[in-house]
Structure formats: structure tokens, C-alpha cells
């Protein structure tokens, strides 16, 4: 069986023109996908190859696992709900409902992805656009600390560099591509200009560009430690001012290196300054699956995009206080629910270790470092393959994931809904 217009949930590109062939409950063919999407789609089947749940490492039923999970979470005083990037909005809504009910802290992969871009937006705003505007109008593309060739493999071909657009009739030929990074990544090959800056000097470079765009004279010595010459920065500033429609894509090279939210704030302010000269946009290259969806769900339900704490009965936000790395790293969380994410493999060791010390409940489609340390593990159906729901592309465009493969496992939405229901009963009793 062939299914067209499949929406891929693996990375923030959310390509929606895949064709998938199914045979005997397996995906046997994938067209139009990148290596990541293909591996993801081929990695799931309709078979029951794992127990529905594990409690203390022993196979258990879903009912038993939900019961233990609900008990653990409702007894906790500072529970943490974390992850939620690789699931769909309907499940995320249940997770936020659960956090509200429990008085928990809820954080998502945003905090270790583009959380700093979120903070920057709260300080200076964000002039941005959807990816179609890039395709249709952008004649200057600047990638800063972003390596789409490896993180968003179809980004160049589908949205930005090569496609022809409404006002870009010749596609690649009508665009100039600049890559700014600390190393010549695989993406450098796609660029006309590669600017190698020194690690941790992004802020100085961006700040110098702001100065140049405002017409200030700089001395060579002022940019001495950036890894770039004044002439290189002047050239870039000139291109930015004289393009017709420029786009600055910011990656984790900015959000994860020294300066973090100030780096992205500098990038956003740079783009804002450029409005005195031309049209420009900034787009954070949000990564994993539906990380943009959980930002949106949290924002409309609580007012805040990540790192939300309900311990006082209402939502509060303070990155550094209520974000997962901090809550775990300081040893504050006393129980955790991890959904569709593998923090034990990705968060700093101190934080990961805390997850092994406290009772942790993990919902995932397959085994991970986190499921290895979790007290309760519940296997769920993969979103976009065996569970359907809403996903947001990195530019906040919502699409609907479909379910085309049956699964022996329940969806995240269903499991979270059952935990919500059980915790509600336990609360009512007390």
C-alpha cells in the first residue's frame, strides 16, 4: 500500500510530501525523505517487539504501570515533567494538564535547544517569517551556528537555498548563501561564503555587525578576537544592507555557547536594525520533531513557552529556576515523568544522574538511556506513524500527522490521559 503526502515528524522541517510504502505491517519504502526521516520511518513496525510496560525492570501491564506512575507522581512534592518534543500537541496538552493537576514543573527540550531564543524574544521581540517567504523572496541567506546539512537535511533543498520561488525565479542562482560557524561543517559546502569565527565570540561578531550597520566606524582592533577581519565583517554588513530580502537562520551554535540568550538577542536586534535598510527575518533552526508544538501548547495554556512551574497552583516561568537542567542539577526534583525524549543521554551528567536517583516514569516508543534508569516504562505508539495529531513546523506552521501503521501500543495522548484520570481520582480521595 502506498500513502502520499505523509508528514514527517522527525525534525523541525516537518516535510509533508513523503510517500511511504507499507507491506505486512512494516514500512518498506520511503520516498522524498532525508536520511533522518527515512531511518525514522523504517525504524518502526506494527509488531509488538517490546513489553507494553516495565515496572522496576519487570514486564507489566499498561494498567499496572499507569497505577504506579500515578502513585509516584501524586506523592511527589516537586515532580518534573520533561521532554515532549517527539510527540504531538494533543498529547502535549494532556501533559500540561497533568502538570497543572500535580503542581509540577514542566519543561520541554526547548530549554536545551532554542530556549535562549525564546528568552531573547522576550527581551527584544523577533522579526521572523514562515519558510515559504524564504523560498519565495530571500536573496541572502545567512546561517549562523547552524548546520542544516546534518540537523535538517532537506532544509536547503525544500525551503531555502535551491528552490525556485515567486520572486526567485532561478532558485540557487538568485541567492547568496553565507555560513558563519566555528568550524567548516558539512553545510559549508552549500555556502558561497564561509566565515569561521572563534568559539564563544558570536556575540562580539554580531555586535560589531550591528555597529557597522548603524554606520559606526570600527577599528580593526575592536574585532581582533572574533576570528574575522574588519573587512570580512564590513563585507557581510554591506551584503545585509543591500539585499532585497535577507534571512538569518540561527542555530545552537548561538544558543549553546557563551552568551546564549544574549547571542540570540544580538541576532534578533541585528535583524531589527536592518529594517532601516531592507527587509529581513530571523528564524531559529528549531530541531527535534514537535519541539515547536510544545512551546505553543505551553504558551497558550500557561502563558509561558518552557520551564513552567505549577507548585503554587498557577503557572510561573523563570529559566534557570524552573528549567529541567537546573531543577535536576540542583537535586530538587523528587520524581519525574519523561515523555518522548531521552534526557539521560542528552542532559549534563549531574542532571541525568538525578533521574536515576528519583522515581522516574518514562513514556517512549523504544528503549533509551532514560528507560534504562526509569522505575516505570510505558511503551507508546510513535507519533506520525501509529498515532495522529498536530505538529508545528519550526516556523510555527501547524500540520496534521497521520496514523498509517497500526500499533499494539497506546498513544502518548491515551497514556497521559489515563494518568491524568487516575491522579484526579487519587486527589479527590485526599
Amino acid at each position: 500500500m502506498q500513502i502520499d503526502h505523509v508528514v514527517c515528524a522527525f525534525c523541525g522541517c516537518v516535510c509533508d510530501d513523503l510517500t511511504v510504502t507499507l507491506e505486512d505491517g512494516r514500512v518498506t519504502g520511503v520516498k522524498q525523505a532525508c536520511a533522518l526521516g527515512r531511518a525514522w520511518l523504517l525504524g518502526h513496525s506494527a509488531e509488538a517487539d517490546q513489553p507494553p510496560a516495565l515496572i522496576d525492570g519487570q514486564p507489566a501491564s499498561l494498567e499496572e504501570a499507569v497505577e504506579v506512575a500515578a502513585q509516584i507522581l501524586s506523592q511527589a512534592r516537586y515532580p518534573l515533567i520533561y521532554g515532549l518534543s517527539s510527540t504531538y500537541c494533543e498529547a502535549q496538552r494532556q501533559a500540561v494538564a497533568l502538570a497543572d493537576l500535580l503542581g509540577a514543573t514542566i519543561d520541554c527540550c526547548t530549554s536545551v535547544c532554542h530556549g535562549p531564543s525564546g528568552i531573547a524574544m522576550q527581551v527584544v521581540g523577533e522579526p521572523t517569517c514562515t519558510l515559504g517567504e524564504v523560498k519565495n523572496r530571500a536573496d541572502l541567506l545567512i546561517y549562523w551556528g547552524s548546520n542544516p546539512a546534518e540537523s535538517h537535511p532537506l532544509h536547503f533543498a525544500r525551503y531555502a537555498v535551491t528552490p525556485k520561488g515567486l520572486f526567485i525565479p532561478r532558485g540557487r542562482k538568485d541567492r547568496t548563501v553565507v555560513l558563519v560557524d566555528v568550524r567548516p561543517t558539512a553545510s559549508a559546502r552549500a555556502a558561497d561564503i564561509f566565515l569561521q569565527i572563534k568559539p564563544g565570540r558570536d556575540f562580539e561578531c554580531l555586535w560589531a555587525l550591528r555597529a557597522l550597520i548603524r554606520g559606526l566606524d570600527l577599528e580593526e582592533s575592536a574585532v581582533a578576537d572574533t576570528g574575522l577581519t574588519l573587512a570580512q565583517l564590513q563585507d557581510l554588513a554591506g551584503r545585509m544592507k543591500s539585499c532585497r530580502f535577507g534571512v538569518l537562520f540561527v542555530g545552537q551554535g548561538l544558543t549553546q555557547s557563551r552568551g546564549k540568550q544574549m547571542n540570540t538577542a544580538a541576532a534578533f536586534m541585528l535583524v531589527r536594525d536592518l529594517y532601516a535598510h531592507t527587509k529581513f527575518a530571523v528564524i531559529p533552526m528549531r530541531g527535534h520533531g514537535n519541539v515547536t508544538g510544545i512551546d505553543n501548547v505551553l504558551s497558550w495554556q500557561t502563558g509561558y513557552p518552557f520551564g513552567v512551574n505549577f507548585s503554587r497552583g498557577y503557572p510561573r516561568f523563570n529559566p534557570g529556576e524552573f528549567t529541567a537542567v537546573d531543577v535536576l542539577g540542583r537535586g530538587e526534583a523528587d520524581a519525574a515523568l519523561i515523555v518522548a525524549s531521552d534526557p539521560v543521554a542528552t542532559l549534563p551528567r549531574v542532571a541525568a544522574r538525578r533521574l536515576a536517583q528519583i522515581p522516574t516514569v518514562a513514556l517512549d516508543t523504544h528503549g533509551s538511556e532514560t528507560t534504562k534508569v526509569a522505575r516505570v516504562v510505558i511503551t507508546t505508539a510513535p507519533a506520525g506513524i501509529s498515532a495522529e495529531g498536530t505538529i508545528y513546523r519550526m516556523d510555527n506552521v501547524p500540520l496534521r500527522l497521520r496514523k498509517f501503521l497500526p500499533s499494539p501500543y497506546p498513544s502518548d495522548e491515551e497514556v497521559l490521559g489515563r494518568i491524568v484520570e487516575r491522579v484526579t481520582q487519587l486527589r479527590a480521595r485526599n
Partner: protein
Amino acid sequence: MTTLRLKTWPAVPLEAEAITPDRFVGKTSAEIEALPVHHGNQEAALGDFFAVSGDGTPDIAIEGDLARVKLIGAGMTQGQITVHGDAGMHLGAAMSGGRIGVHGNAGDWAGAEMRGGQIYIRGNAGHGLGGAYRGSPQGMNRGLIVVAGSAGNEVGSAMRRGVIVVGGNTGDFTGAFMIAGSILVFGNLGERAGAGMKRGSIITYQTPKLLPTFRYACTYRPVFLRLLLRELRSLGQEIAEEWFERRYRRYCGDLTAFGKGEILAWEGP
């Protein structure tokens, strides 16, 4: 004097904005013990964690490791709090009067968005000292913060009025987006100081590493600084005589903002 002694270490963060002279005044120790605190997601009483002695005078002493106790003195308008030990996050945040002394370290956001009063920290302070919470247009707006040790990133971010003194070093982005006010750093001034500042003064006694958007203006003896140093000395701060006498190099910036701020670098002995 009302004395609080930590008797039960909180297993999870304890939010205790009830610990302010405003709430204690006129209360018996039993009434003070009954004041509400939040232990994680559960409500508790101050007395569950602290042994309270003395009656409700606006003079509070707290003993114990309070690193997990948040919001001590937050929003206070009067009186005095002395912490014998470390204090948790948001110490004196949004306070508008009174005095807090910490004989230990303070957590992040000490004095954040304060509107008046004084905070003295003998040890180190964390990030966001006297700063703005995320999204807020303004940080500290009046008051005085003195830290004997070092402080973290974003000291005095978006501050509008008041004085912050750091005896040791500061982290990155000291005085970022400052609107006005003064920050004195006697140790090393962190990188990117004054990023985006509109007005205000950052004073350093080491050779600063400046952003490209700061310009050397002149070398002189700023009168306001002499007055400020004298006032700080009168408050008990150690001020070297030569800081009065020698000249300061004035760098103006941030040129991407108003450019009316300044970093004053002491010329040296």
C-alpha cells in the same frame, strides 16, 4: 529581635516570602510560626521548618543553611533581616525598603527588580543580581546592593536606578541593557559589560575588555564618583584612598543604544 533557626532542611525548594519584617511586625512567635510557606507543591507553616523565638519586631535573624529557601525578604518595605548562612534565590527581590544582611552566599536574582532598601552579602551572589526578570523592561530601580565576594552573569541587567557594588569579580554582561544607575566592580569586570546600555555608569578598577561599541572619550576625575565613593565609605565599605585621587578613563557606549552610558576604568596607581 525575632530569631528563626532552621530545624528541618527542606527536601525540595521552600518558598518563604513570609519571612519579612512586614509580616512579622506585631505577631507573637506562635503567630509567626503559623505563617504560610510553600514546600514544593504543598502548603506548610513557617514553624514546620523554623524554630521561632522572640516577638514580632521588625528585626529578624535567621540561622541555618538556607540555600533552598527562596524569596527571603522579597517585597519587604521596612526593618532588617540578617541571614547567618547561605540564602536561596530571590533574596530581597522587589523589596522597597529595609535592610538585608547575608553572612554567606546568596542565590540567583538577589535584589532583582528591587525598588529601594539595602542588601549586603558577605559571600558571593549568583546571576541576575539586581537584575530584571525575563521580559521585564526594568531591573533594579533604587536601592543599594553590596556584595563582598563575586557575582554571576547579568549583574544589574536593565537596572534603572540605584547602586550595586561587587568586591570580587562579575560574570558576563554586567549592566547589560542598563537604563541608568551605577555598578562598581572592584575585582575583574566580566566580559561584555554594558552591552546595550543606554545610560548609567559601570566603574572598574582593572583594565576592562570592552565591546567594539564602546569609545574612549577622555580621562578625568568624575565628581559624582568621588561623592559616591565617599558615601559608600561612610556605609562601611572599604574604599582605597587612591581611588579618590587618581583619574579614570571614560569609555562611552553602548553606541548601538543611546551611547550615553559609560564605563569608567581607574587609571591605576
